[in-house]
């Protein structure tokens, strides 16, 4: 039998469009790939991350003492598309599908197997749904397929209509990030394994409490709400805006800080805010130093909604999360809900939706919204007492600590062991275990 998968006997290859470069970060997937790859490498695994990287950076770099290798793929295409990872998506996709498989097999799998190691290849989201079968085909032709575990992970349902599920499911174990997604995918005839998303340990190291108190005081108002996410109807921005409007109509003073992306849906949301009588102001500080931000916010004290127009780094986000009376992660459709979990790590009072947020327990570590009625937000917000808030904040932090990448990787590796035992041929398990060289053509 194979010993458990461990750094001495396994190599990880992560394949994704998004990755750690700023160019390659478009949302949760980029963060996930950055953190997952780092976490595996920190645990000691030889880890390779192939992603559509910044064309101005080196094509290949190593980190963490050589344990983590980053491959910035399709740079020759990206040089024509400065607008980020999904700019020129089709052109990149073609190049990715065509060139990644051969490279992975020749440059990573081949030497790993020669060193008696098991190779785990994990693809992420629909962009890699052809890449994995293409890798599998080459491995099969080269007689190496039995030495490789292949997984494909769905972070969200985007692009599902483009996937050849039969082919993908034949060559890889399909995984996803929440039980909600699992059930969602049942309707497609697929039963994915659930391996949750994680958050980095560093989120717990930010000293936020004193700064959060100061921020809360400077923001003012009766209720300080914070919301961050793509401008997308799935995020239920209008529900959040309407909740603020309801509070205002009750004679209360809401102060809502919002930070969206570059999506055009912003226009509709802000139009709705204005229509509901909310005062909206943009916050554009000279830099993202907290003091300068608060100075700008002070200057628009009459605003109900403050639209942050600058990049908000992790540590600053943690302060806002902690300072807010409510972090509105109230999505109507969330495959996992990373923002909610990150906010919980900061000890926030998080209002989540009720789809993929497996981590959220109603009124224990979060406020789980069951409807899209804004009154559900205002009702819970107004009914919470100090004791409940304190308890929720404590529990939130406690829960979030169970989802750090090292903990998630324990689940991931346990699942992998199960897959290895059940899907690899016994002679491969034995040979890998005994350190016998595996012959292949």
């Amino acid at each position: 039998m194979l010993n458990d998968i461990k750094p001495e006997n396994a190599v990880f290859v992560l394949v994704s469009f998004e990755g750690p470069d700023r160019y390659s970060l478009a949302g949760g997937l980029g963060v996930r790939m950055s953190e997952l790859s780092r976490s595996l490498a920190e645990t000691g695994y030889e880890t390779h991350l192939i992603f559509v990287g910044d064309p101005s950076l080196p094509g290949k770099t190593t980190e963490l003492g050589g344990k983590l290798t980053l491959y910035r793929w399709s740079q020759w295409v990206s040089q024509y598309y400065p607008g980020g990872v999904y700019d020129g998506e089709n052109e990149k996709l073609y190049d990715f599908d065509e060139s990644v498989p051969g490279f992975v097999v020749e440059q990573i799998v081949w030497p790993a197997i020669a060193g008696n190691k098991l190779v785990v290849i994990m693809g992420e989201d629909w962009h890699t749904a052809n890449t994995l079968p293409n890798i599998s085909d080459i491995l099969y032709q080269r007689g190496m397929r039995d030495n490789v575990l292949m997984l494909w992970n769905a972070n969200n349902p985007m692009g599902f209509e483009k996937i050849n599920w039969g082919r993908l499911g034949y060559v890889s174990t399909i995984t996803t990030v929440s039980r909600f997604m699992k059930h969602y995918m049942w309707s497609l005839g697929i039963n994915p394994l659930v391996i949750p998303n994680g958050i980095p340990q560093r989120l717990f190291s930010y000293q936020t409490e004193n700064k959060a108190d100061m921020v809360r005081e400077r923001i003012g108002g009766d209720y300080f709400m914070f919301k961050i996410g793509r401008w997308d109807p799935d995020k239920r921005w209008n529900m959040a805006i309407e909740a603020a409007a309801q509070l205002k109509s009750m004679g209360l003073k809401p102060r809502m800080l919002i930070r969206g992306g570059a999506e055009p849906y912003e226009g509709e949301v802000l139009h709705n805010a204005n229509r509901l009588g909310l005062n909206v102001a943009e916050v554009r500080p000279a830099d993202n130093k907290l003091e300068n931000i608060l100075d700008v916010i002070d200057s628009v004290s009459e605003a109900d909604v403050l639209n942050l127009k600058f990049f908000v780094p992790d540590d600053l986000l943690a302060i806002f999360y902690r300072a807010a009376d409510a972090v509105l992660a109230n999505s109507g459709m969330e495959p996992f809900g990373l923002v909610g979990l990150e906010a919980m790590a900061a000890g926030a009072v998080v209002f989540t939706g009720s789809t993929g947020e497996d981590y959220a327990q109603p009124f224990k570590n979060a406020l789980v919204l069951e409807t899209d009625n804004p009154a559900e937000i205002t009702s819970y917000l107004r009914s919470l007492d100090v004791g409940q808030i304190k308890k929720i904040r404590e529990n939130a932090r406690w829960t979030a600590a169970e989802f750090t990448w090292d903990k998630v990787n324990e689940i991931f590796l346990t699942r992998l062991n199960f897959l290895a035992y059940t899907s690899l041929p016994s002679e491969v398990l034995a040979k890998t275990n005994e350190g016998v060289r595996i012959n292949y053509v």
Partner: protein
Amino acid sequence: MPAQPIPKGANVNDIAQCLFDEKMNEKYFHKVARTCYYPAVDMFQSLVDRGLRLSIGFSYSFLRQAQIYDASLLKKFQQLVSHPNVELVGVEPYHSFLFYLDVNAFIKNMQDMVSFMEYLFGKRPVVTDTTEMFQSNEIYFALAKAGFKGTLVDGRPWVMGWRQPSYLYKYDGGPYIFPRHYQLSDDVGYRFSNKHWSGYPLFADTYADWLTSAEGDFVFLGWDFETFGEHHRREMGIFEFTKGMVEEVQKRRGEFILPSEAIEKFANGSHTLPLSQHPSTWAGEGSTEFFLGNSVQQSIFRLMHHAYHKALLTNNIELVELAMWLLQSDNLHLVQWFGKHGNEAEVSAYFTPSEWWRLTPSGIVWEMQQVYKNFIQAMDAHIPFIRQQQTVASYQPALDDLLYR
């Protein structure tokens, strides 16, 4: 295939990389080199030492690929051409149908080809073929204008009329015309391996009898070089046949003669051959239908026009060259099978890379058209009016804005 999308603003090198599947080209080149080019060139090298006189033509596209994929093969061809019994004939450089689109560019290309051949082989072609032996009244005069002394035509009955193909011809003061003896040529070129042919199996002595007993001044035989080892496999005996044929012809006191020598010898007794306004070719049934007979071929042909004309608009010689590569007749040849059955369709299907069939026939024709469409669109950025190149750095504020966290 499927067609690779070309990034907007891509430079010429990147466009070329997206248009052509170099890996696949190289694979097939090596395959044919192994089965045909190497054994055939060795065979002809030994045969010219023993008295065979032959003429040979190379497209620029073939030479370029040989140079990149197998330089030693190119050296072998150079050595063969250097033999006094070998004459170099001209070929349209890109194996293209440029004469249909731009006759002046065709003339210039043919003239440039002569200089290039002289540079590469040390011999200057004076007699020339065209792509797939296309010949017509208009092409003939274009070749006359380009300065050639002789040219070829496929000696089909409808081209020759009452005339025999085994004489030297001329028309209205232009180059001398060698009609390929299509019957005797195709006995070897097409029918040699055909077990259903009444002449099968064809032996060298029989064929030598046919050649030496043919009426006329000479028999002009013309074949694809790939006849030897590729169209007809080694195991079918094509190499032994060819060697034997030379020997058997010599036994019968037959002589081999080079085209330029034939002009010297037969010029005074040359006859008149008016050429048709509709082109003839040595492919298929001998008319343009082989390349333009179905709707897919016509559609791709129109896209060839658009690609070439768009390239001209860029004033970029490298893009024009890419357009010429895309003009090659093979891109029409390999979809000749569309909507057809029978021998010809089978032959053209053989020329379609096996890797493409997974796309299905309609997928192949769709993706082939997509290649041209991608190219035409990619040239948008090369039309010379003022553009500003955006860089990642100039986009940084927008990138920041894209990131909501």
